């Protein structure tokens, strides 16, 4: 089981829930399962989110491995100037 924390808008979309437990070996599987567990999140996840794994922010690397001990936090999609 992976522990996934939500940040920003995602929290309101998930009806105030900030933590989920889902299966998955990488970011893609994790997001797919999260979408199933919490359909309200689907549109946001489709639009794209950033995922912080152990402090490192990933915007696209869907195949990035994650494990039960990983710190996983979903953040809004980010861009710079």
């Amino acid at each position: 089981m992976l522990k996934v924390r939500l940040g920003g808008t995602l929290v309101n979309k998930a009806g105030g829930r900030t933590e989920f437990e889902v299966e998955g070996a990488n970011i893609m599987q994790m997001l797919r399962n999260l979408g199933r567990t919490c359909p309200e999140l689907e549109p946001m996840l489709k639009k794209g989110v950033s995922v912080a794994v152990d402090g490192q922010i990933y915007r696209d690397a869907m195949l990035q491995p994650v494990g039960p001990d990983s710190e996983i936090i979903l953040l809004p999609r980010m861009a710079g100037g």
Partner: protein
Amino acid sequence: MPLDANTPDLRTEFKSVGTRPNRPDGVDKVTGRARFGADFSAPGQLVGLVLRSPHAHAKIKSIDTSAAEALPGVKAVITYKDIPEQAGCDKDVLVNIMARGTALYDGHAVAAVAATDAAVARKALKLIKVEYKVLKHVTDVDEAMKPGAPVIHPGRFEPVEFESLETASHVKGKEEKKTKTRAGSNIAGRYVFGHGDVDKGFKQADIIVEHEFKTEATHQGYIEPHACVASVSTDGMAELWVCTQGPFMVRDVCASLLGMDVSRLRVTPSEIGGGFGGKTTVFIEPVALALSRKAGKPVKVVMSRSEVFRCTGPTSSSSMWVRIGAKKDGTFVAADAVLKYQGGAFPGSPVEMGAMCAFACYDLRNVRIVGYDVVTNRPKQAAYRAPGAPMSAFAVEGVIGEIAEKLGMDAIDIRLKNAAKEGTVSSYGPTFGPVGLVETLEAAKAHKNYKVKLGKNQGRGVASGFWFNFAGNTCVSINLNVDGTLALALGTVDIGGSRASMCLIAAEELGISYDDVRAIIADTSSLGYNDISEGSRVTFSSGLATIKAVRDLKVRMCGRAAKIWGIPEDAVKWENGAAHPAGANAGGFDPLSIKEIAAQASATGGPLAGHYEVNAEGAGPSFATHVCDVEVDPETGAMKVLRYLVVQDAGKAIHPSYVEGQYQGGAVQGIGWVLNEEYFYGKDGTLQNAGFLDYRIPVCSDVPMIDTVIVEVPNPGHPYGVRGVGETSIVPPLACVANAVSSAIGVRARTLPMSPPKVLAALEGVNASKA
């Protein structure tokens, strides 16, 4: 172990990296030969001009283009009808490039013409008859959130409850009082970040400081106006020459807006005359393509300076509330903030990033940030250097400055006491790896500027800042020429000397001379997709991809050497620009230099090249600390910046001169933001200062030399330890100068810009209260 592109090689010793050679594009730029956006021309090109709304908010009842079309020399006139909505395109971008039914801000494009010359085109614009029904408008973020405010997008956004800054009651310990907006809202989103229990935290505080802050919108202010030349052939094949931070983005967005196959549109980026985030989207590009498609001729569109100000992205204006609680010893126990950013006529203000950056510099157990994205009748905001971060830092660092004053603590000490470091759970969630905030604070404290004695009406300010830094899609190719020199093809537009840095990196990897590598920025048909040059990502991402591409080439060159020597590939290693037998038992061959391998390439299997394609991740965050001394004229409110110091973590500076340049440039943009830059709207909602005369960016005589210290805390996510450096430098200045003014004359500016009239008014307020 067989050598491959992914051979781990965390370098700490460098030959080329860290030196300061001349940039490869330099001579063209000092001789006027470099070709920027407006310097391109296509044979037989027409001149394209855009008609723009003179109203802040108006229904477009009708557009009559017949008279313009009839004018001799006019080859095409277009309105939104000529750019029909395509499935899957970005509707907001579509509406922003050409109004569809409603003009949403002063300067919103309504129609466009292409004619044989500028005089005819200007005349044609005057002949287009547009019938407007002027609607109520709103340009202020707080006004736009109030019940009864004119709604910019009726029915689009759910009304949401929001904390009213007038009461900010939810954090003032009183019962939760919230204002409900009426049906139909300009609030496009509400975002919450943080952790811990803020209300509990404040109970432990010995001192609590809270204030409201406002900042006005500022423009990126690049000196080169947007420009492009579009050429669409009758067979649908299209070329676009354009100044942009993201040619691949321009290609994909234009293709989707105009319903073209991406393969049919080739975008060639010109040299770019500044961007700072403002050239990360499209404005005139799809319009020029649509004009060219209709006219059947190439069309050149160049914005005027007033168009740049009226209709390209400034950043958000903001209205903020920040509250921080601390112990007597300066330890922060709780922090809370409400941020309201207006992003112009469309959703997407950088309030989320502002919220995530607000407290990122500090180790906080209890922190909460609520952010609102608000729409108004202003141009669609575009990214501006560390989007969203400077405003929230202005508020937070200002409050911290006041706490330090009240506790009688040194401004750097209080930050050191609370500074985020490796292992700190950041205010936006993730736990930090190795970061350099503490190092910047210590270097600032040790710097001579921090010890200078100050005179009458002079003061010193300190502020720190944070930016994430990004990476992203990057493709690089490197080709070995017959003489052993190298051609390096990059897909990230060079906005500040990155070609020089990439050549240094390639030379470093190969162990050859910088002068043997030549870098170019490729067009969109020559390389795989590259993300925009944004988010301080270029030196990190293209640098990473260049390292990997060169390592790929090294593998192939070692392979050739192995063939020539008749030994296995893994018995060959690369050193100092030549292939060597790896160890004695590999055989006693003389090394084969890169030049020798190049000379034999054709005879030993053909040309040699290396390439690498990646969606890079792992850009390390960067922190900065600024120190500024100012002198204020108490009779006029005029302010002079006497000294300015930037200390920032670069991870590893590839070309130190251009790293310093980023520090200095960002700092002076921030100084402009705090002193004089602002979007000044009239009662009618039209922009009153759409020019460099009254939109006052700093001039040469406004600023002192900008001292810099490059701190290097290596980023574990990069083989050389590189972190992005482009954006963090604009985060601290707003608060840094404001804190300096406060220490000079005891006036705290909480509304930007702190132009002389505001400073003088505040001063008289203080004197009055004294009297």
